[in-house]
């Protein structure tokens, strides 16, 4: 892997910022909210052309091989703009699962398409109850001659309805294994879940004797998923840090211009001190997300601890920033038309998306030997 230089990263970020300012405005985000699509394919295409979908993919499969450090930075910007595109689901987590599977055939077949953005994939990880620990898988696989069929259900699938390829972890007699499913296959149905964050595309997928193609070694399926969750958590932390920073910026801007009692409200200590406390959280979130990315990229022994730390610190910082932002705005942020609740909804969703803050705090303490 070749980390991007600071300069390359800046260039990429600048380009992405310009793209988001053009194609991921609040108005556009709201229109995707209404139709519950989460994003616009033309934006996705532009992102792909910019190389954003290829960051994690190795150069030999047509990717940039830039690794998780670059992904984390890019996700900060995605979070900042409330982007709902399947960057996390497809370009991060699906790619990571395939990489960890060690399945050369699947990799050369799928990674180039994922890198170019021409294929959108997503992972079926948890049973409909929502559990990212692997303890309860919702899908079982059964051999039928040389082939496999899958049955069961998976919940909280990111962009299930829009994906061209589903990658599921399913129980076999020899332990969990990965499977590739075509969404149009026999017995496969996709039900839209009513997500509280309307920019978040979540589905429940049900399979009944659905044919699937096995990936990697049978029995090691969960390790691949765990790798995807590890990188996904770092990417999500970046999204949270970026979202937290943006909603704080929005609030500080408002506190500078909104006048009450003849003064900008930001001159009142009640508002100013809330903002001061928030920037501690926001800067900490940025530190946590970037540290988790670096440690993960290094393959450091203590990388899991740093990921758990990012897992709850970034989630909590985003929720608190968005929640306090509503309070600091006052009545105007109690309206649907104001952007603050979009950040609040996203932050609440992100706090649960791959596991809860309380869960990650517990894992963190375990990782520290406690």
């Amino acid at each position, binding site marked *: 892997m070749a980390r991007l230089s600071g300069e390359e990263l800046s260039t990429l970020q600048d380009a992405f910022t310009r793209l988001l300012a053009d194609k991921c405005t609040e108005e556009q985000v709201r229109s995707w909210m209404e139709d519950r699509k989460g994003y616009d394919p033309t934006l996705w295409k532009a992102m792909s052309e910019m190389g954003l979908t290829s960051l994690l993919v190795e150069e030999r499969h047509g990717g940039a091989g830039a690794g998780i450090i670059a992904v984390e930075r890019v996700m900060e910007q995605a979070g900042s703009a409330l982007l709902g595109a399947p960057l996390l689901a497809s370009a991060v987590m699906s790619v990571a699962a395939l990489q960890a599977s060690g399945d050369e055939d699947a990799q050369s077949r799928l990674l180039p398409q994922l890198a170019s953005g021409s294929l959108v994939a997503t992972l079926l990880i*948890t049973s409909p109850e929502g559990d990212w620990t692997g303890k309860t898988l919702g899908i079982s696989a059964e051999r039928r001659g040389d082939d496999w069929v899958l049955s069961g259900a998976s919940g909280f699938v990111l962009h299930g309805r829009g994906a061209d390829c589903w990658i599921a972890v399913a129980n076999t007699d020899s332990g969990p294994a990965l499977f590739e499913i075509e969404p149009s296959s026999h017995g496969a149905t996709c039900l839209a879940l009513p*997500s*509280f964050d309307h920019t978040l595309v979540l589905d429940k997928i049900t399979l009944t004797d659905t044919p699937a193609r096995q990936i990697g070694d049978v029995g090691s399926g969960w390790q691949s998923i765990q790798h995807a969750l590890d990188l996904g958590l770092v990417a999500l932390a970046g999204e949270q840090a970026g979202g937290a920073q943006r909603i704080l910026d929005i609030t500080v801007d408002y506190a500078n211009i909104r*006048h009450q009692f003849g003064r900008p409200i930001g001159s009142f200590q009640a508002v100013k001190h809330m903002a001061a406390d928030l920037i501690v959280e926001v800067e900490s979130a940025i530190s946590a997300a970037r540290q988790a990315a670096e440690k993960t990229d290094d393959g450091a022994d203590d990388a899991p601890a740093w990921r758990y730390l990012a897992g709850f610190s970034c989630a909590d910082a985003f929720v608190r920033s968005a929640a306090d932002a509503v309070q600091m705005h006052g*009545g105007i942020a*109690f309206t649907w038309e104001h952007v603050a609740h979009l950040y609040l909804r996203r932050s*609440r969703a992100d706090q649960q998306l791959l596991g*809860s803050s309380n869960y990650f705090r517990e894992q963190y303490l375990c990782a520290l030997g406690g």
Partner: protein
Amino acid sequence: MTEQLPDVETVRQEVRAWLEENWNPAWKGEAQEGPNRVAWLTQVVDAGWAAPQWPKEWFGREFDDARNRVVREEFARVHAFGTGQDRTNLWINTLLAFATEDLKKQLIPGLMRGEVEMCLLYSEPGAGSDLAGVRTKAERDGDEWVVNGQKVWTSGATRADYGMLIARTNWDVPKHRGLSFFFLPMKQPGIEIRPLRQITNESHFNEVFITDARAPAANLLSNEGDGWKVLVTALAYERSYMGEAARGPRSGNRVKMAEGEDELIALAREAGKLSDTSIRQRIAQVIAWRKLNDLNTARAKADLEVGTSASIMSLGKLAMSRILHETARLRTDLLDAESLLEGSENPRAEDANFLALNAYFTSIGGGTDQVQRNIIGERVLGLPKEPEIDKAVPFRDVKGG
């Protein structure tokens, strides 16, 4: 006034007998609206039970506190509504304190009988925490006032016959001194009402756009320029009546609870987290806050009745804000991934998410927590006010936005 009041027990017998004869328990859900509401209220008013403490002129009996309480008790015993308007009718109390005789005669009977509906026209987009900074303008034109401006957070605007309006009539004096208070007729062409979509995806409030709307000169309360005084009194009435009207879950979902058990305990049990000490500590704490707020309120009311100060009355809203926000956080933490969802098929998630958003109704609406802390600090604890830079400046020169 010099008449002898009947003794307390006689009052009790009389009101009890009257209720037995007239009240139909089937009407008890109609306190806010319903087909029998006006007819019933008319009966209550005519019988002199609507506001027993008021003079006969306003359908009262000139009762004292003790007799008045007996009437309330008997009404409450059978779940009848319509009495106690001397304590709870914001509109009439405001009229009685500040309106001309004509306006009182014109409006009070209909208000008591529920025939006349009202709304509040206070807040503006530019005047939230700072109500004295309103920019809606009223200008005298012969026997009328012409009103222009925009109000927000008005509930019941579409049904209302009148709105209690605070508007600026003089821009050349400091902000508190240039305000006037009106009963603005709402059913007229200059009033445009647009529903406001809330953060919770509901519409309980409206924006009211006022363009050359007219109010008769007689609908001015107190004098021109005295509006702040009227508003402060009306707000005090409102706060002392309202108590805590925080909304609970909206899903209608009921978890299985043991007799008298708290819903949070039942939810934790359902989620399999009742043995988690971290959750247990938080549930105990938030239930405690709720109980303590109830106790504080009860103590404040008791103090009021023996005539001493009731400083802690004003703490309830701030306390409730913390209770609601923490309850929402706790419900969310009980749900984990389930909280990603909403809607009637996901009632627990619907409730947690709704409460997380609607908690701001209490922490922002009716004065933010921050403004509330100012009020408590200054009025309850006697701490000095901040320097107010716009207090002595002609409003024309005050920076807004």
